[in-house]
């Protein structure tokens, strides 16, 4: 049996047990815990959506409370039917998520964590003090049941089970979609994601809105299930409970928060036997889990399972190197069709010669950091089809120049034009959509994912498909996925990375990681490829291979701008060389001209490398 079949079997079994639970168990106590588990599965899974983009929020209760209060106030004060209350709860929470997201999503890690606590506490104090609307600490009582025929816990149980299944199905579909992969890219390496065209703000906002919507409807369910609502729903303890479920279960996985929610609903109940020691044990347990399973329980279980499997696997079968994140990956398998070579975009020059008209024009560009003039009045043109090398001493402003062109860094004054369009006003990810893609000086890949996954993430940036397409897998979805796989395969072949296809990127040898970077950039379909010191740290053999690769990239009609210190590489493959020193353009010309240029020799080259070798 394949792993996929086993997974499906387990899931079906789980759903079967879940559906038949009220048949076996009559105890209201157990059903009540089951409903609470369901509620927490919703909360933890929704909160986990933000973890998928790498943001930890400590304010989920703000949306939970908002949803609950909106629903409760609408139904008790204005007699609005449940269905409308329910939706209003979701929508109002989503709107709040959008507003708070707009204010906070530019913040990262600790700042984001703390500002979300601020919002949650603020909401709590409003609920506590705005007595006219919320009844303050007394709470809202006698909230009606969703419908008259809602009698007994079993009804609520089926309702929450239904909600859980829908949400999990949607999240599962998102996981393996352009959206899920874009989110994964942001979590793994936000800057690299941007450089291949992923609009991280957009996906973070999507995550925030989606997450708060689900939490909002869960809030509505809470209000109509307990039929009483007080400010305790906004307590920090509840936030902690949700976060514990997500992180201890396994952050950014699909199954982790579900397992976490069930375990951490049941464990405190079991611990009731320990009376006063209950929360003491709970706290100690939490510390222990973090110490021994920092990735969470689910990933630990998966890795134990994989170890066992590898130990007992028949000889010859390849070992299981895929990361845990892909355990439920059910993407169509590679069909290995590659009838055509990469399509050459129309903007590229057809022939293997350099065009006369420049595609990228840098005009009088200055970049200042306070008093540091990193780039000073540089004007430069890049012609389609050429390889332009930019050389110069360390700190000369080469990388700053690349950053300015790809809009990852600031521009103080001056202009950058590409194919007649001004780039100054664009954001980093937008330059990638203009087919300008770059690599980085320090190796920048998606470190915890396989080589293959790295490639797939990079592609998804260019033709993002929508939420609906991905969740319902409408027509066109399969073609799009097929195309992504085909292209990833093609580039793997092109960069000679086939052998590493299932290896985790951070475990690759250094040279292969640098190739992977190039591969990621190529998947993003560049017409203009900017390489920032691709040969840094490579041995001579690897440099040879790299030179050959860059020449092949040029042959495909891709223009290459190369920042490099390896003179053998620069002089060997460049059509033109530009020299930068102290932020200023010192000289520009063919490699031969540059080698003879006195100013360049004085500032950077010393003796030209040919002479150096002969002497």
């Amino acid at each position, binding site marked *: 049996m394949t792993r996929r079949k086993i997974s499906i079997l387990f899931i079906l079994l789980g759903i079967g047990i879940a559906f038949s639970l009220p048949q076996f168990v009559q105890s209201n106590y157990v059903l009540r815990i089951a409903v609470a588990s369901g509620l927490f599965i919703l909360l933890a899974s929704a909160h986990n959506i933000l973890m998928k983009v790498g943001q*930890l929020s400590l304010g989920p209760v703000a949306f939970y409370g908002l949803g609950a209060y909106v629903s409760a106030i609408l139904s008790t004060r204005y007699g609005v039917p449940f269905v409308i209350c329910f939706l209003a709860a979701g929508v109002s929470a989503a709107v709040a998520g959008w507003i708070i997201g707009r*204010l*906070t999503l*530019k*913040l990262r*890690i*600790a*700042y984001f*964590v*703390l*500002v979300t*606590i*601020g*919002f949650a*506490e*603020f909401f709590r*104090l*409003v609920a*506590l*003090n705005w007595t006219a609307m919320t009844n303050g600490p007394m709470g809202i009582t006698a909230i009606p049941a969703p419908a008259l025929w809602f009698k007994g816990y079993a009804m609520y149980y089926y309702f929450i089970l239904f909600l859980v299944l829908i949400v999990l199905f949607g999240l599962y579909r998102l996981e393996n979609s352009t959206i899920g992969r874009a989110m994964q890219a942001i979590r793994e390496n936000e800057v690299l994601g941007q450089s291949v065209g992923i609009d991280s703000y957009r996906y973070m906002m999507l995550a925030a809105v989606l997450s708060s919507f689900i939490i909002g409807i869960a809030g509505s369910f809470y209000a109509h299930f307990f039929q009483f609502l007080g400010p305790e729903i906004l307590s*920090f303890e509840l936030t*902690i409970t949700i*976060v*514990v479920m997500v*992180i*201890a279960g396994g*952050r950014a996985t699909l199954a982790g928060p579900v397992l976490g929610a069930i375990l951490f609903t049941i464990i405190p109940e079991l611990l009731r036997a320990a009376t*006063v*020691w*209950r*929360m*003491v044990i*709970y*706290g*100690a*347990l*939490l*510390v222990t*889990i*973090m*110490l021994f399973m*920092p990735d969470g329980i689910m990933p630990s279980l998966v890795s134990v399972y994989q170890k066992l499997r590898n130990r007992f696997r028949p000889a010859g079968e390849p070992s299981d190197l895929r990361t845990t994140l892909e355990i439920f990956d059910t993407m169509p398998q590679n069909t290995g069709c590659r009838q055509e070579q990469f399509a050459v975009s129309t903007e590229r020059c057809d022939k293997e010669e350099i065009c006369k008209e420049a595609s990228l024009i840098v005009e009088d560009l200055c970049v200042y950091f306070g008093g540091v003039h990193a780039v000073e009045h540089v004007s430069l043109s890049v012609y389609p089809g050429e390889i332009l090398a930019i050389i110069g001493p360390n700190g000369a402003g080469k990388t700053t120049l690349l950053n300015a062109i790809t809009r990852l860094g600031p521009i103080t004054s001056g202009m950058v034009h590409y194919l007649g369009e001004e780039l100054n006003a664009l954001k980093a990810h937008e330059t990638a959509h203009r087919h300008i893609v770059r690599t980085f000086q320090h190796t920048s890949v998606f470190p915890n994912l396989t080589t293959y996954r790295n490639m797939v993430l990079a592609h998804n940036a260019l033709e993002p498909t929508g939420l609906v397409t991905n969740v319902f897998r409408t027509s066109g979805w399969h073609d799009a996925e097929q195309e992504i796989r085909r292209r990833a395969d093609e580039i793997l072949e092109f960069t000679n990375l086939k052998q590493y296809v299932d290896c985790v990127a951070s475990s690759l040898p250094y040279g292969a990681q640098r190739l992977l970077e190039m591969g990621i950039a190529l998947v993003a379909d560049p017409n203009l490829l900017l390489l920032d010191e691709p040969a840094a740290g490579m041995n001579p053999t690897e440099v040879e291979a790299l030179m050959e690769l860059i020449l092949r990239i040029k042959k495909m009609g891709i223009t290459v701008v190369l920042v490099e210190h390896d003179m053998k590489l620069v002089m060997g493959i460049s059509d033109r060389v530009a020299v930068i020193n102290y932020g200023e353009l010192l000289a520009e010309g063919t490699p031969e001209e540059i080698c003879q240029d006195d100013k360049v020799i004085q500032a950077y080259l010393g003796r030209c490398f040919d002479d150096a070798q002969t002497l």
Partner: protein
Amino acid sequence: MAEFLQHLINGLMIGGIYALMGIGLTLIFGIMNIVNFSHGEFYMLGAFGVLTLFTMMGIPYLLALLLSAVFFLLFGAVVERGILRPLQNQPVDVAMLATIGLSIFLSNLALIIWDPTPKDIGMPFPLIGINVGPITLTPIRVFIFVAAMLLILGSHMFLRNTRFGKAIRATFQDREAAALMGINTNTVNMVTFSWGTSIAAIAGGLLGPIFQVFPTMGAIVSAKSFAVVIAGGLGNFPGAILAGLLLGVAESLGAGYISSGYRDAIAFILIIVVLIVRPTGILGKARRLG
């Protein structure tokens, strides 16, 4: 006017304690990159330490304060070594969750040991009012403010003028470079954490005699220390002092003139406004220590 001055003075006293909590938290964040959720619990335990030693065992107040400070110095070192050091290469949220677990553990343990009813430490100083112009000062409040300021000043001097203080500041600037220069960054972590823990415990012991002492008292102080740390700029030492004093005064004036129900909201509004308008904190970007 007299009322305003009185609020101002009360605000400064509470603000001094917030600043004291804030510098510990901000330094732990700056050096160790840990958002320490158990900081408020150390404050609570410090108050209980003084309650046990001073009220229950009759040891003089100042000695009780000193003994509890030394105890929590060791306690902080144990926590750092046992829980935080093994997690230092994990994502930020793992260590954060571990400190949350520790905080749940400690506050519930306190609940068992000292039961939930609020307790009075009793007054270590004579209860007389000293009139300075239109305002009234009590010896305990003067003592709290002076002690807080002395501790802040002492920490500052330690960071500025000692060799180890220099090592801490170097680690703050760049951990890797500091390690390459031969600084034992693990020791820096341990000292920073146990110092922060001890100072939080002293803050609890100082404020204990004015308010009542109970096991859940750490939570709100914890939240406010975060507000102080954010408003001052994460990892910014002078920023935390200024923000602590400001928050104390703002709360005191807010409670006096607006509504005491929303007094605790001021801290959170401060967090939100500062982070949105000026995410680097009120003193701006300067990553400076001591």
